[in-house]
């Protein structure tokens, strides 16, 4: 140990000598020396001298041995990885301790120091592995010794920094790779590739990558299922073949989504005997399926300008496939020619309402009386089912053969229409009418880019000639537009079961088209109104301002969930004016907020990594100026044992850590302490800060001072000097 006095201490000594000289001059030797010593002690206390002690260098370099005790170390490939590490350690202990001053740690998410004996009986129980955190922690705790590190691990990292972001360390880190992928039995679906959007009725391709460890000469079925609300339906089965025991293979599926919306699918491979991880045999994904073409069935009771114009709008829309029937001749019409000279065809009532109705997305009745054309009540029941169960849309446009006048009261149609029917109160009013938009935010009325522009457009539309007086709206229905002149309901809508239904009292919207043209405007507002109306009637999603798409609605903890938010085309503003935030909440309590990054003006992306199991609600909120739009999704998060889900040893990561720190990687079978010799220097302690010790802090000094004073008092009393 090296002692070193401070300058203050030296000054104190000089002062002490001066005091001695003074006391000796004025007092007797016997008493004075006692006083002098007490004085010296007091001076010692006042000056608080200290001494810096530099630690002595070890003769052996320090080495911290870290053993991974996470769950993945319990994997048997074919022997337990932890068992292998413990046996190796037991085998090399003496050799290690001969060469190094060794401390032992176990680690998973963090590290803890323990004795060698306890390390040998440690169990693989850690739920996560954070190798970086363990290294940081050990280096911090033993910074005085600045040891080199020896890590025994399978390298499977399930927490902490991403591998590419790992830090560089100043102490050399040596690693021993435990685990043998060749002894592992596991089938895993590594990746699924599929377009995130598909069209109903159009085939879509799915590519699945399967990885095999341990199953040689094996044929396995890969099953694609569609997951419904209550059951799973097997769509296709493909076979994947593995010749060798390690390898990857791709399987392709081609399937055709049969309905629209967000459809859920599952790719699964049956769990094999002795398979180490079971969760990775299944992957769920969802597919946003839209309509390539809306299929509309338009039945019109009599030819009219409204039919001509509306048909033209629907026919000219490339996204609409229109089938229409218009009754050209009623039984009372007499034609002086044979049927062969007429282009008329019999109305295929049974074919339409029994066989093909479900192929359509929207059914329009304009001034159409069912009773005259062989349509039976059970056909109307089919229409009801088409709306409520199949999610089809239904629109009835007023006319002398519509609503109550078409004998729909008390029929199955009555139950889905949003308006009441009473033939005594239903009338065709032959007066000019203009629309008062009641629900200004409703998508069918969104003709302009802003609310002000929208209002201006609706005010500029020409008057319509006449309307059908609807007696009243049903409870729960939404009055969308009424007559500006007398408040009569003109457009009423609601949702019935899975579908949407609208009742329309206006029947001459063609006058908007010609009227706009008269004023020199394009007909786009008229066209837009009808296109939005049929889209609202046929789809719940298309009319949304904001649509959130998640890559899956069932996911595992720790796995990122990708979020895409699409803003409806036509909304004003630039990307800079907009921000989309996704709030994650559980049981009504918001837990996280994610700000999405804009990809372009209409698309935002981000991801969320769920940390706990549960049912979460994700709410995407678009803020655009003072307006906000939202879309909501529910995600079910299941717990996933990440330690076991990916059972493959990750020796590459260990190599990377060792390489960055100036250490070296060894396979367990190759490692011996001799290989570390010369690579860990004892001089690691050079540069360690000396420790300063306070020499005045001992309580014995006070006791000595008090004793001396008592002695001095006793001597003086003895000499009768008091």
């Amino acid at each position, binding site marked *: 140990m090296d002692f070193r006095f401070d300058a203050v201490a030296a000054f104190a000594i000089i002062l002490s000598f001066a005091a001695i000289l003074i006391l000796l001059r004025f007092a007797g030797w016997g008493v004075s020396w006692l006083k002098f010593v007490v004085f010296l002690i007091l001076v010692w206390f006042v000056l608080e001298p200290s001494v810096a002690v530099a630690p002595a260098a070890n003769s052996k370099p320090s080495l911290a041995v870290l053993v991974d005790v996470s769950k993945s170390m319990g994997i048997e490939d074919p022997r337990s990885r932890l068992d292998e590490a413990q046996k190796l350690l037991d085998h090399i202990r003496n050799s290690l301790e001969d060469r190094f001053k060794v401390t032992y740690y176990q680690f998973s998410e963090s590290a803890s120091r323990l004795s060698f004996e306890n390390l040998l009986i440690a169990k693989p129980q850690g739920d996560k592995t954070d190798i970086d955190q363990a290294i940081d922690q050990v280096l911090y705790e033993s910074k005085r010794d600045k040891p080199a590190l020896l890590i025994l691990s399978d390298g499977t990292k399930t927490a902490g920094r991403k591998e590419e972001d790992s830090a560089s360390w100043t102490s050399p880190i040596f690693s021993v790779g435990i685990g043998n992928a060749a002894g592992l039995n596991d089938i895993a679906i590594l990746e699924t590739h599929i377009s995130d959007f598909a069209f109903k009725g159009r085939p879509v391709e799915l590519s699945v990558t399967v990885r095999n460890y341990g199953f040689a000469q094996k044929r396995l079925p890969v099953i694609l299922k569609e997951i419904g609300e209550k059951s799973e339906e097997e769509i296709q089965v493909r076979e994947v073949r593995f010749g060798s025991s390690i390898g990857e293979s791709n399987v392709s599926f081609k399937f055709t989504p049969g309905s629209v919306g967000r459809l859920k699918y599952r790719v699964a491979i049956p769990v094999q005997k002795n398979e180490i991880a079971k969760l990775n045999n299944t992957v769920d994904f969802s597919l946003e399926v839209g309509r390539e073409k809306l299929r509309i069935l338009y039945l019109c009771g009599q030819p009219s300008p409204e039919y001509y114009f509306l048909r033209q709008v629907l026919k000219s829309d490339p996204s609409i496939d229109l089938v229409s029937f218009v009754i050209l*001749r009623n039984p009372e019409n007499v034609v002086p020619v044979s049927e062969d000279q007429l282009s008329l065809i019999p109305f295929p009532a049974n074919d339409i309402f029994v066989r093909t109705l479900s192929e359509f997305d929207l059914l329009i009745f304009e001034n159409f009386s069912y009773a005259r054309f062989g349509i039976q009540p059970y056909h109307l029941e089919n229409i009801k089912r088409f709306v409520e169960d199949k999610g089809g849309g239904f629109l009835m446009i007023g006319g002398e053969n519509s609503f109550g006048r078409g004998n729909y009261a008390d029929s199955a149609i009555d139950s889905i229409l949003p308006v009441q029917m009473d033939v005594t109160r239903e009338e065709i009013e032959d007066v000019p009418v203009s629309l008062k938009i009641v629900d200004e935010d409703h998508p069918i009325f969104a003709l302009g880019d802003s609310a002000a522009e929208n209002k201006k457009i609706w005010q500029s539309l020409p008057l319509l000639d006449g309307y059908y007086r609807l007696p009243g709206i049903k409870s729960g229905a939404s009055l969308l537009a009424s007559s500006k002149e007398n408040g009569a309901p003109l457009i009423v809508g609601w949702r019935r079961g899975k579908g949407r239904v609208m009742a329309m009292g206006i*029947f*001459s919207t063609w006058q908007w088209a010609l009227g706009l043209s008269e004023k020199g405007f394009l007909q786009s507002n008229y066209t837009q109104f009808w296109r939005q109306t049929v889209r609202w009637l046929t789809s719940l999603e298309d009319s949304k301002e904001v649509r959130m798409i998640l890559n899956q609605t069932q996911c595992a903890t720790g796995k990122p969930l990708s979020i895409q938010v699409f803003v409806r085309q036509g909304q004003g503003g630039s990307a800079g004016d907009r921000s989309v935030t996704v709030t994650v909440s559980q049981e009504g309590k918001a837990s996280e907020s994610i700000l999405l990054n804009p990809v372009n003006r209409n698309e935002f992306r981000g991801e969320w990594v769920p940390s706990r199991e549960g049912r979460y609600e994700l709410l995407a909120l678009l803020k655009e100026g003072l307006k906000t739009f939202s879309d909501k999704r529910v995600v079910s998060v299941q717990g996933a044992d990440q330690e076991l889900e990916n059972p493959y040893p990750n020796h590459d990561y260990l190599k990377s850590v060792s390489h960055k720190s100036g250490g070296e990687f060894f396979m367990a079978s190759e490692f011996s302490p001799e290989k570390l010799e010369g690579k860990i220097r004892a001089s690691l302690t050079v540069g360690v800060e000396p420790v300063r010790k306070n020499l005045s802090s001992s309580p014995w000094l006070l006791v000595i001072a008090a004793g001396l004073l008592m002695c001095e008092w006793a001597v003086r009393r003895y000499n009768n000097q008091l």
Partner: protein
Amino acid sequence: MALLLIVFFSFVSVVHALGNRFVLAQLKAQGAVIQWDPYPRVGSDILAFLQQTTSVKADPNRRVVSLKDSALFQAPFMIYTGSGQCGFGAEEREALKRYLSGGGLLFVEDLACESGGSFDYSFRAELKKMFPDKAMSVLSRNHAIYRSFYLLRGVGGRKMTHNYLEGLDLDGRTAVIYSQNDVLGAWAKDLFGNYLHVCEPGGEAQRWESQKLMMNIILYSVTGTYKTDTIHLPFIEDKLKK
């Protein structure tokens, strides 16, 4: 009494709003066009026949409109007939252009039945001024006009100048139908109900074809290309073969 009530309600039930009724409008020509209304009583005969034979509900009164009249845009179907020099002022031309572009249908008759005649020449020139990049063309026999109600193998008219109709297409629909056979002339009757003109050269059969053609043109104005939809094709082709 009960019978009276039924009759009353039957009457009420056939009341239609003007907005969704077929309106037969006649364009009152300006300028040097002569005989813009040669058959003033034809309209009622046409409408009566239309309502008797088809389900189309029509305004029983013919409407006469001019190109300066706002009522032009209340009638999506309009007949324009005449002879002599056809010429529109700039304002009229713009109104007609807007009418046609907005969805209106114009049936034009060259009363003179004279190919390359004054009306023929001047009307084509007017159309060219309105739609410089468009030109009329012969309507094929598969056009919806030939099958919108009757299955027609040809055309009719008072005088068979051509065995076809011409048309101008705008935005995927035929907006102008042009005839030089005087189809309306085949309908014309005197006060005693006798036809005014002999149809040449086909006689009464040609007259019947004229009447059927007129019906088809009206039906086309309220059904558009309905009869060219795929679902009708096998039926129509089957009937045409017969």
